[in-house]
């Protein structure tokens, strides 16, 4: 009984020591919800494979604090997004905006898909034409039947 208590205590203190590391929450859960929804769509610039919401880097902390302030100032999501883009460029956005420089990025895969489909269709059509239909004579049919029957007998054995 004592050991169970001890283990529980250990586990509890362990999780407590981790709780310290968590980012401070704003007093207002509504603000925090908006902060998460905005920052999940943004890339942390220090650790580029993490979102701004998930990153523990110092800069991400600062930027979350900044976004929190902007939310409190009553800025819209779009205004906050452009605040970030003005400073760090489109790179912070996980969804790059559609503009001439990103056209290739957005429609490129579909263009490649269309090229692939066109190539496949021409290939299939050409192959279809290459195979000529051979008219079978009665003799041929008899020989085929004989061969097939022969095989059936073998299988039966």
């Amino acid at each position: 009984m004592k050991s169970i208590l001890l283990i529980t205590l250990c586990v509890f203190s362990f999780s407590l020591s981790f709780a310290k590391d968590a980012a401070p929450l704003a007093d207002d859960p509504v603000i925090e919800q908006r902060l998460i929804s905005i920052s999940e769509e943004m890339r942390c610039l220090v650790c580029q494979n993490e979102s701004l919401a998930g990153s523990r880097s110092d800069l991400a902390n600062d930027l979350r604090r900044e976004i929190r302030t902007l939310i409190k100032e009553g800025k819209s999501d779009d205004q906050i997004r452009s605040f970030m883009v003005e400073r760090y460029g489109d790179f912070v956005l996980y969804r790059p905006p559609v503009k001439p420089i990103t056209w290739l990025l957005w429609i490129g895969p579909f263009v490649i898909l269309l090229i692939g489909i066109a190539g496949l269709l021409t290939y299939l059509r050409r192959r279809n034409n290459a195979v000529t239909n051979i008219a079978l004579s009665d003799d041929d049919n008899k020989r085929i039947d004989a061969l097939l029957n022969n095989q059936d007998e073998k299988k039966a054995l």
Partner: protein
Amino acid sequence: MKVKFLIPLVLFVVLVVFLAMGLSRDPQEIPSPLINKPAPAFEIPQLSETNQTFSPASMKGQVWILNVWASWCVACREEHPVLVELARSKVAPVIGLDYKDKREDALAMLAKQGNPYLLSAFDANGRVGIDYGVYGVPETYVIDKAGIIRFKHIGPITMNILNLKIYPLISELQKS
């Protein structure tokens, strides 16, 4: 008919070119949207003269260099001799932006390694850094007479970058 067999080879070469381009790029280097935009205004205390402030507006009319640094930043130590060299050349004033640092640590580092800066502004909470899009110290900006950012370098500057990019740019900007 022979040409058909070359198609995979051509595709392969195209693929290799794209991959080679992708590999030779540094993913840490993101083109700054601040190039050719006015340097964001700020007014914060200086590092050594705590009762005085620094504002980029006071640099109007001259080409200057803003270098973001910190005593905790290892790459800054590597860059430091290059900055000292840059300051010695006296081509343009170098202003430091001490980013998220402790005052005594920063002053100790300058005392030990030499101070290339005309002065350093002390950005204790990194708020100015955010306006300048700082994400990896050290970062270096060249700002022209009208207060427009003309060049940004992320990471330590080397003698090579100094000679090939920064010096030519400064002399060009000073002419106008």
